């Protein structure tokens, strides 16, 4: 095994010391944040500014149309469809003669075409204005309606499942959803990204024509495992750096936000009555939410979840990385590899879809079966585990799934080793999967 560890070291350090690696690892979180911030900014900036003149002969809407940041309504005199552009308005809105009935046609004439967002926004404002007026006519105040609304949204539903011995366990849908989906997504990303890295890494010996030289010093299997483990280690290093970064950023944000919220809470406590009953309701609501989160966090068996995540993360990586390595050993450039990697990426994508479903239906037969099959178990089982072990997932199911996954990656590693030892020395024609399988059952 000494030679394998030599190979692992070389693979690891040659990648980790690479300038590209350092730059991508450090920039990724930054780029990610920028992307989100940028797209939000752009979507806000992109809202068109509309200055609308309203022709309302009945006077119904005069004070009822709400302005927003980008759409303003004015009620000028002496503006009609001929001169509204000259007077500096982007559009003219003509109200029908009789209002208060639904289904009336309102007309908006504009110089430039109006986007869908703005159109819907204007429609909503007209609806709101009508609703307001009708409420007024019926004698109901808007502020009364609002406060009723807020107070009625106070019900919290506690969900419990049947457990052993007639006890019940709390179940937390949102948390289960979050953990299940999150870990499933992480595993999905890892397998695709690092699978491809293994593929390219394995091709390195072929493109550099050094395969035979290395294989005269070590067994092909040692070379393959060295690459899989070495590249996996690079992946884990990258992950850890990102996680640390995220924590640092979150901690930094926390430091900035905390003093302000602390002051707010204190201020609310000191002055008992704040403007409107709504605020005190808000305070108790946020207190409740914090309590809920802490409570949810306690109900989760973090040790089990983390342990299982680690197991399925590694198991899934080993399972698929071997297959990618097998493909990498028979091709010499990435384009050629696409037809061969298809049968590998298909199950990964399929598993993701099943996982997304299993997170909502952890007990469906599809979810159960897919949490056993090694192809999909890493993602699907994590989705189900978040709902509780041994509740949704009995211990025996967990063990069977783990056992099958171990068997699975032992098998794919063995298979890949056989394909690798022949493929690595083959130059020229690209084999099909059928041919590759034949090599597996042939002696060296």
């Amino acid at each position: 095994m000494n030679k394998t560890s030599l190979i692992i070291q070389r693979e690891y350090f040659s990648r980790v010391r690479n300038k590209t690696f350092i730059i991508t690892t450090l920039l990724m979180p930054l780029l990610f944040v920028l992307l989100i911030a940028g797209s939000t900014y752009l979507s806000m900036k992109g809202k068109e500014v509309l200055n609308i003149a309203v022709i309302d002969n009945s006077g119904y809407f005069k004070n009822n149309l709400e302005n927003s940041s980008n759409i303003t309504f004015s009620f000028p005199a002496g503006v009609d469809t001929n001169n509204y552009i000259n007077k500096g308005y982007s559009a003219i809105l003509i109200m029908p003669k009789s209002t208060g009935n639904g289904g009336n046609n309102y007309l908006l004439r504009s110089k430039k075409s109006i986007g869908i967002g703005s159109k819907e926004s204007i429609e909503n404002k007209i609806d709101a204005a009508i609703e307001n007026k009708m409420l007024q006519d019926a004698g109901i105040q808007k502020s009364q309606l609002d406060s009723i609304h807020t107070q009625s949204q106070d019900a919290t539903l506690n969900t419990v499942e049947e457990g052993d011995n007639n006890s019940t366990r709390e179940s937390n849908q949102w948390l289960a959803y979050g953990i299940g989906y999150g870990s499933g997504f992480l595993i999905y990303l890892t397998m695709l990204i690092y699978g491809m890295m293994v593929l390219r890494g394995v091709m390195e010996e072929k493109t550099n024509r050094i395969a035979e030289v290395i294989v005269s010093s070590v067994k092909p299997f040692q070379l393959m495992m060295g690459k899989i483990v070495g590249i996996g280690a690079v992946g884990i290093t990258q992950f850890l750096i990102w996680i640390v970064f995220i924590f640092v950023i979150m901690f930094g944000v926390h430091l900035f936000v905390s003093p302000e919220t602390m002051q707010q809470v204190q201020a609310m406590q000191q002055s008992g009555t704040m403007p409107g009953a709504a605020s005190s309701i808000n305070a108790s609501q946020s207190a409740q939410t914090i309590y809920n989160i802490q409570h949810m966090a306690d109900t989760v068996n973090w040790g089990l979840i983390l342990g299982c995540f680690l197991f399925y993360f590694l198991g899934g990586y080993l399972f698929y990385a071997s297959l990618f390595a097998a493909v990498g050993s028979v091709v010499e450039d990435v384009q050629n590899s696409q037809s061969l990697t298809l049968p590998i990426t298909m199950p990964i994508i399929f598993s993701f879809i099943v996982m997304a479903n299993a997170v909502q239906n952890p007990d469906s037969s599809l979810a159960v079966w897919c949490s056993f099959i090694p192809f999909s178990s890493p993602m699907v089982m994590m989705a189900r585990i978040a709902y509780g072990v041994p509740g949704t997932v009995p211990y025996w199911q967990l063990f069977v799934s783990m056992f099958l996954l171990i068997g699975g990656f032992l098998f794919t590693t063995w298979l890949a080793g056989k394909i690798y030892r022949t493929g690595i020395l083959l130059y020229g024609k690209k084999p099909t999967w059928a041919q590759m399988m034949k090599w597996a059952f042939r002696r060296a």
Partner: protein
Amino acid sequence: MAILSLEHIKKYYATQKAVDDISFTIDQGNIFGLLGPNGAGKTTLLRMITGIFYPDEGTIIFDGKRFDPLNDISKIGYMPEERGLYKKMKIGEQALYLAQLKGLSRHDAMQKIKYWFERLEMQSWWNKKIEDLSKGMSQKLQFVTTVLHEPKLIILDEPFSGLDPLNANLIKDEIFNLAQRGSTIIFSTHRMEQVEEICNHIVLMNLGKKILDGTVKQVKQDFKENAFSIQLAEAPLSIASDAFDVLHSDDNHKLTVKIKNGYRSNDVLLYFLQQGITIESFSEILPSLNEIFIRQVEGTHAVTRSFQKIA
């Protein structure tokens, strides 16, 4: 004393018999030539000797014991025909890596690398990347990594391809040196003139079988055609004789003669001496290995073998 002994080695693939019952022995200190046309099975044979492939049948005896790839690999150096290096790695680092893979400790490896780099004038290359080297330079480096760990058996497959005469000479000298110091060298090539220069024993393979096996001298003797070259000072009076046929003569009074059965070289000399002509030189023309190779392999459909199926 034999360092390598192959006994009835066979390797069959689905479509052909790559190596079909080959046996030979190589003595220590020999420079051994493994020859044959493309597709003869040379590379497959070499891969079995280096433990990359395993024979379907037959035994390999290395250094007196049954060949054990795991342990014996450290005593063998192999420079395959398809040889390259990690382009992005630094040269010193790469030599170290390959040496360690062969089983050398870091310390020993460093010492040996320094020794060879000095010997072949490569000291300044240590921190350069492989991709910065010219072809000749990288070949030199590959040679160094092959012999670094002082293997008992060194296998070189087309070592001179791409080398200019200067570097080729350098490598040739090193090969002789290594043989003198006790290493055995297996040399596989198509360049017959190099084989004549360097090797003392050869095996010619074709279609997976062994066709010739012997020292270079012996093989040439086996294929000699009793042809002699005689350089005369002046034109002879006559060249008709029962002892020989004249195959060729040029303006410079140089004759190529073939001695007939029952006669010998002395008869040729006597013939011209009796005419009183001064003989400037007289020597046997042995066939070149190139000619022997072509004669043996011609017409055997060697090249199209890979397209044939097993009968």
